[in-house]
């Protein structure tokens, strides 16, 4: 088996829902041994989140859980029992990294805070992911995707004027927090491994939004630089445009395309659209907004004659930027992604053979291995507890009877 980038890293994973599991999924997909610790009998709440295979709610058939937990091993452990806490500490003794996403203060109440764990494992690196961080007045506040986007993100300027601010589709705020947490975890881990500085990393989902570049961060600096408060634009977009070149989402023959233009691309537009009129002198001043109506008449009628794939193809050939507004079905059928063999099939003992999103980058020296499916609840109890912690088979039965595992 080819070595993977993180093959020598062992992670104990106490995360659930989306953000934490996506962080540990990234670690696991690149080779780390990730041991996911779940509550006996219940497991990660994501097991109860839809969509489910065949729309049948089943803890082993949740699409989001299956997606977020590939390549991890799963054990069950009752952290509220003293025995469970002792076993957890035994596990930590063998680990390099602990990632947790309990509400702030829970780990301390369980006697499993960073200070306690660091005592038994001096080189331990621990990451805590929470809504607002481990400190501050909102520390104990509750939040969800829409609340985090409202507070940390740029929801205020998402949508159109006169309407309510709009959430981004899906749970991308949670995923982004998980991705940033993976950067924080690996960064701090490198410090722990090579400079002997082990520490507790505190990731606030709100700050991963406020500090992310396409979001708050640039807009915040815009406010600091010039008092600019971004808001939702009134439709039509022409009212806020500075040049008549296309920018935004437009209807075409069979759907919509997203187009962006730079001023120096005008000659390419003339070629791509193939409308002789656009060569006339008056169209050469892109900033003359009085031409908008005339240009749009040409542009919209050209779009009406072309499908979204045709627009993409013509723009690609002319080095212009346009992309179809793709449905999930289009994404799965995308020729380019197929060419790159991006999507992967994974066989799962209960959910069967399914297509999953692939790894987000390819490493030449340490390519991703065939992927393992998400663990069944407690699937690796025997392996982990026996092999790593040295428990005997009859010990495991006793622990199970007492509800510890």
């Amino acid at each position, binding site marked *: 088996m080819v070595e993977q980038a993180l093959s020598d890293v062992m992670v104990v994973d106490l995360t659930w829902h989306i953000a934490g599991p996506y962080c540990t999924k990234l670690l696991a997909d690149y080779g780390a041994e990730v041991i996911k610790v779940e509550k006996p009998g219940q497991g990660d709440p994501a097991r109860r989140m839809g969509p489910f295979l065949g729309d049948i709610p089943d803890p082993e058939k949740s699409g989001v859980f299956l997606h977020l937990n590939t390549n991890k091993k799963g054990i069950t452990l009752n952290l509220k029992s003293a025995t469970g806490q002792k076993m957890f500490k035994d596990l930590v003794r063998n680990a390099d990294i602990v990632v947790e996403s309990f509400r702030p203060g829970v780990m301390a109440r369980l006697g499993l805070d960073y200070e306690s764990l660091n005592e038994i494992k001096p080189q331990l690196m621990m990451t805590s992911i929470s809504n607002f961080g481990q400190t501050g007045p909102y520390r104990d506040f509750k939040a969800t995707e829409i609340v985090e986007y409202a507070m940390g993100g740029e929801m205020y300027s998402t949508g159109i004027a006169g309407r309510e601010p709009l959430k981004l589709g899906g749970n991308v705020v949670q995923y982004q927090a998980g991705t940033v947490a993976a950067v924080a975890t690996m*960064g701090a881990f490198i410090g722990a491994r090579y400079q002997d500085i082990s520490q507790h990393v505190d990731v606030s989902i709100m700050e991963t939004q406020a500090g992310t570049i396409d979001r708050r961060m640039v807009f915040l600096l815009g406010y600091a630089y010039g008092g600019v408060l971004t808001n939702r634009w009134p439709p039509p977009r022409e009212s806020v445009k500075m040049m008549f070149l296309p920018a935004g*989402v437009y209807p075409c023959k069979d759907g919509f395309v997203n187009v962006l233009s730079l001023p120096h691309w005008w000659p390419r537009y003339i070629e791509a659209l193939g409308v002789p009129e656009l060569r006339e002198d008056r169209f050469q001043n892109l900033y003359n907004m009085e031409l908008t109506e005339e240009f749009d008449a040409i542009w919209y009628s050209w779009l009406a004659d072309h499908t979204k794939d045709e627009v993409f193809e013509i723009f690609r050939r002319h080095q212009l930027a346009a992309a179809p507004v793709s449905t999930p079905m289009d994404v799965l059928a995308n020729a380019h992604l197929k060419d790159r063999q991006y999507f992967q099939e994974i066989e799962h003992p209960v959910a069967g053979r399914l297509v999953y999103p692939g790894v987000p980058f390819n490493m030449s020296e340490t390519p991703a291995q065939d992927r393992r499916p998400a663990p069944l609840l407690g699937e690796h109890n025997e392996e982990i507890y026996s092999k790593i912690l040295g428990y005997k088979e009859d010990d495991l039965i006793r622990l199970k009877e007492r509800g510890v595992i």
Partner: protein
Amino acid sequence: MPRLPLEGIRIVAMPVVLAGPFAVMLLGDLGAEVILVESILHFPPITRGALPRPPQFIVPTTGETSGGATGGLTTYVNHEAGERPWDRFSLFNAGGRNKLSCCIDLTRPEGLDVFRRLIKVSDVFMESYAAGVLEKLGLTYDTIREVKPDIIYLSMPGLGGTGCHKDATMFGAQLQALAGHTWLTRYPDLDYTTTQSQLFHCDASSGATAAFGILCALHYRNRTGKGQYIDLAQIETLIPHLGEAVMDYTMNQRVQHPMGNRHPSMTPHGVYRCRGEDRWVAISVSSDEEWEGLCRAIGNPTWAKEERFCDALSRWRNQDELDRLIEDWTSQHDHYEVMHILQREGVPAGPVMDQRDAYHDAQLISRGFFEVVSHREAGTHLYPGMLWKMPKTPMSIRRPPPCLGEHNDYVFRDVLGMSEDEVAELEKENIIGGDTYLV
């Protein structure tokens, strides 16, 4: 003072627009020495401005958003482009911290020679140009590896380094359309042409994922001595962030449709108008417990006891009416007030914050999120800061965003040990050095 985790790691970077700069910013925050290689002869559009010297009428003025797809991202300090617009541009400066800048013309052999000398003393090279650009310059992984065998080389074009559409011109807006994110983000009652999202999640996902990739490769190199090439397609970092929609399709062949601010199971779930001009609060209720908390918070009105809201399913079915009733209450209060009242009762709620709210927000202030930065051309301002806390090796904005070519001297004289004569000769030909665009 303990060393930051990446102290001693040198990264040569040619990032453009948003995603690439974000990736190396995160590594700079962790202590790496990030050296941007720029050029006074080639202006990378958007990265340091739409144009090197924008006419005043395309510079947005106070209180307005600018036009075009780059929208509110493109603010100049005090709305003045000034003598050196490229050093005063919000989009570059927001992600510019903890980086150095030197200028080398990579289209001439002498420039390439200097660049290779820099690679020789570096650990990582990363670039975020369109696919093929570095190849044209002769700077592929294979040629770079000849100079520095254990180099880590990351490329992150929109669609990656292979595949039948790899040459397509793609920005975040196009990638999010192609990945299916635009499809999922809109008002259910309006079509896509009015969506106008200026928020390109693809830049967020690919920047952070690229930083993670480089860290994985660094760890591998540290223990094996081997470098490698990382091919990152930005779109492939965004698709996993849409896992629910992808899996629903692969499991059930169902195409998920946009729900606006609603949720497949939670009710109430959305934003509600508050007192004041265009003020909103986000509220979501995921359990009966939280519903009871919400009822208590708003004074247990009689309507809350009615049959149509008696359980989670009824509330989901009757959410239009429910939303109106909740808004009757929220609209009497300030958005922050609603958050505090509801959070006291254990209900997830928070204000939809504009930039002014963020700068005054108790949580961000208490955690020291904003940092004062003085910049030679931009002046002194509060900048958004670190994305996480690492108490034993606290991260901070150690350096302001670099002005174009600000660290020419450091790179050419100190890092590369070039002689005064050599520097002078190459500078004369504009092969290295300079701090002003000649285009």
